[in-house]
């Protein structure tokens, strides 16, 4: 039988992506210049899904505003996970909203329609579930799997050794009994990860695996958004009119004739790019972003409503929404050491992460690896480094 409903899990914050998740959950962060969640929904709709049930929780208004009541003519319904007690618990909230076999996907990773189709093709009524299997060199960050003759034989969460090359891609097809299985799965510290239930299904029944090689991109840390942007730009998974190969400009955007786009680059709707500005390569400008005259933006993600001041330089930067980069401010780019909590990530290629509504004053500079919190202000001419707390003001 054909599966036409999908549950999208979009309730979790994605705490390791702070400070970018201060105002929205991870699925609403940009892959290039569109929310990750839109890529997920595109894949589902293109694979023939006719009904989307989205599980929302953390900052759910942003998901609801983003998708609305229908996405590409497919109706969208919402169920709320009040407390974020794991992905299995999230799926359980959709119990009343779906019946029969269903596709389940994580809303926070970029996937392609072919991945959904392959997962659906691998599912049949006698098996308990199917899931997409992706080759990934960072298996230690994810759920590693063993696949034999199309059948999943083992699922290990975040394995400590390097023996694994295949991971669980977070795209599933389940039979209608999955909700009973979820309810029957013992909780770990009150939490219910979906993979605990999948592990039980592997032990008690048959779980099929579909080996897929379509685009699969995930961000664990804020600087991973640069890699995700690189993937979607590199794969041409970008909307807008392609003016020249690798240069996508939305119809409603204005690019001054004396500005330069360096492919690949995408300029979102309502953007304005001033005279003498250089944008690219590997740059994504979100909706209504402004790059003023003579600014230079390279290998960066500039999110919606952000204003990059005249003559400023952004290299390897990730900005949130509504950020102000003052005239002549400089983010010279990585590599640098990034400190998150008590963890140090050495030599990351990161200029700076500048969270929503933060301001870099005119002529200021960010040392490589700087994290600027939501609404923080880096004063005129200041050199910022390390972590600037939310709302803080750095003065000379």
């Amino acid at each position: 039988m054909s599966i036409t409903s999908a549950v999208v899990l979009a309730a979790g914050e994605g705490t390791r992506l702070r400070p970018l998740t201060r105002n929205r959950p991870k699925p609403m962060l940009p892959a290039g210049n569109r929310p990750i969640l839109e890529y997920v929904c595109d894949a589902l709709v293109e694979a023939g899904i006719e009904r989307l049930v989205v599980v929302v929780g953390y900052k759910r208004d942003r998901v609801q505003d983003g998708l609305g009541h229908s996405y590409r003519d497919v109706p969208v319904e919402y169920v709320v996970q009040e407390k974020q007690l794991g992905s299995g618990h999230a799926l359980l909230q959709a119990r009343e909203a779906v019946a029969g076999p269903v596709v389940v996907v994580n809303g926070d990773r970029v996937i392609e329609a072919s991945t959904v189709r392959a997962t659906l093709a691998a599912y049949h009524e006698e098996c308990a579930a199917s899931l997409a299997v992706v080759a990934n060199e960072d298996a230690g960050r994810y759920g590693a799997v063993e696949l034999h003759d199309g059948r999943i034989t083992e699922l290990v969460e975040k394995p400590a050794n390097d023996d694994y090359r295949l991971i669980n891609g977070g795209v599933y097809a389940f039979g209608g009994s999955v909700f009973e299985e979820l309810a029957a799965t013992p909780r770990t510290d009150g939490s219910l990860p979906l993979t605990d239930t999948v592990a039980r299904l592997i032990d008690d029944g048959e779980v099929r695996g579909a080996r897929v090689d379509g685009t699969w991109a995930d961000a664990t840390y804020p600087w991973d958004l640069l890699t995700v942007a690189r993937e979607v730009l590199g794969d041409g998974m970008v909307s807008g009119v392609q003016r020249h190969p690798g240069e996508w400009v939305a119809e409603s955007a204005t690019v001054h004739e004396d500005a330069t786009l360096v492919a690949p680059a995408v300029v979102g709707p309502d953007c304005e790019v001033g005279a003498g500005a250089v944008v690219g390569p590997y740059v994504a400008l979100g909706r209504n972003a402004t790059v003023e005259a003579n600014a230079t933006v390279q290998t960066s993600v500039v999110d919606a409503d952000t204003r990059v001041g005249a003559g400023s330089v952004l290299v390897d930067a990730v900005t949130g929404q509504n950020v102000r980069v003052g005239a002549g401010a400089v983010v010279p780019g990585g590599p640098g050491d990034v400190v998150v909590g008590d963890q140090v990530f050495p030599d990351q290629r990161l200029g700076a992460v500048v969270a929503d509504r933060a301001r870099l004053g005119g002529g200021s500079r960010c040392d490589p690896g700087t994290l600027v919190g939501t609404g923080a202000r880096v004063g005129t001419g200041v050199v910022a480094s390390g972590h600037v707390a939310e709302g803080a003001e750095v003065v000379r």
Partner: protein
Amino acid sequence: MCGIIATVGRSDTLDVLMNGLSMLDYRGYDSAGVALGGGGDRVEVVKRAGKLENLRAALDGEGAPEGAVGVAHTRWSTHGPPTDENAHPHTDPEGRVAVVHNGIIENYQRLRDDLEAAGQEFASDTDTEVVPHLIAAALDRGEPVEQAVRQAVDAIEGSYALCIAVAGDDRLYGARNDSPLVLGIDDGAYYLASDVPAFRKHTDQVAFLEEGEFVTVSPDGYTVTDGAGEPVEKPHHTVEWDPEEAGKAGYDHFMLKEIHEQPRSLRQCLQGRVDELSGSVELEELEGLERPEQLHLVAAGTSYHAAVYAATLLRSAGVPAQAFYAHEYAATTPPVEDALVVGVTQSGETADTLGALRAARRRGATTLACTNTVGSTAARECDHTLYIHAGPEIGVAATKTFASQLVALSLFSLWLDDGDAREQIAALRDLPGQVQAVLDDSRAREIAETYHGSDAYFFIGRGLNYPVALEGALKFKEITYEHAEGFAAGELKHGPLALVTENTPVFAVVTGDGEQARKTVGNVKEVEARDAPVVAVTDGASDAARYADHVLEIPETDPRTGAVLANVQLQLVAYHAADLLGRPIDKPRNLAKSVTVE
């Protein structure tokens, strides 16, 4: 002020009608009913007072009527109380003819007297019921059905949108005069409704009927004729927006959803109209409009506050402009001379505003409609139209459409002034992100909780913030049913200050640090001295926060966009205050979305 949906050519007539009613019930909601006909010698009617759920329950109880032609109605009383009898559809005593009607039949008493004198008995107190009686009388005289319907329509005077089903006839009839009626066109199926959302689920092809037009619809096609009976070719329009936008998308209320939609609706309003690089504003639809010497803005309700905002903005740019209540303007129209008369109406169907625009046109004025609704009466009757592009709004309390009115009128003021508008355009382009910032960080819920149960709520502002104060109070009273008033800050000491006590919170809207802000801070001190709690809605540029008990913060920006941001905070305060009181927020008592009666 009612909603009509009718259809012909569907096999699931009842489902189409019920779905249509649920999409239309924002227009009024004190009773609803359906009638299905086609075959048989009677039309089947089920109608109930109260909300749509009552009708649904009745249909479940009585067995679903069937038929290939159906008419349905959701009513908001103008003649007679909301009872089962007064609910539409209305029929003749034999049940051969079913009629739904939106508007007022002015000569109904005389027609009814004549019919009663001829021995006919009436079942309801409504003006509408004369129509099925007239048609039945003509059928009794042996007139063919279409002729009988036509004669009845010719006999009535007043404002109406009518849909009529007759037993044993597979056609649907519609007529329009001063009340909206739209035809939806699909393969082998047709719809007539007072508004597009009622059938948008089924088709995006529409034709708008004009005043005095009459339409006959069968499963095979339709014909439209004018008042003289001459056939009229109707252009088809494609409706672009999505029917599902009418859904709540996970929000408890449409109002909250629409408050949160503002960043998006403001982007739509600005899209393609501003160019910061060149500092220019382009309003394509105003091509050919000459720069006027002076402006009269006419409007009612929330739209009136947008008109006050626009008039203030224009006057400060040196353009003589005044805002008027539309109903007063129609009653005592000032000399229009060389004025451009701008009607601000979200629906484009507000009877008072249409009346004012018609009065101005009779005196030779050029008119401009500022509206959200493509193809609305205001858009079709005025010489020019400025669209606000806010998308459909379902909550009775206007929120996103007010914000879009402010921005559209702000664009209009920049368009009138040929100067370099780079700074203002930058401020407008910053606005969607700043509205999002207010939505993300608002403390409105906390403020609503703190002042829950106060005696009254006052709102003050000066200059561009004066209409914000008026709108803040209107929103508050509409949905909380609490006493709320907005005042010009400077007017407080001339009277209203007597109302201020320690149990009447005063919301003061203060933006910038100019002379107006300083004076409003002075008014805040007057209020403080009377021990009233003060909530400052401010960007922090002045020292208003120092004299306030609570602060609702907005980002610092240009005064014209600061007004929009302050309004968002006050929308949220009203919403949360109403929510705490358990009010039916999307459908406050006694109010309807689109006020199509004068």
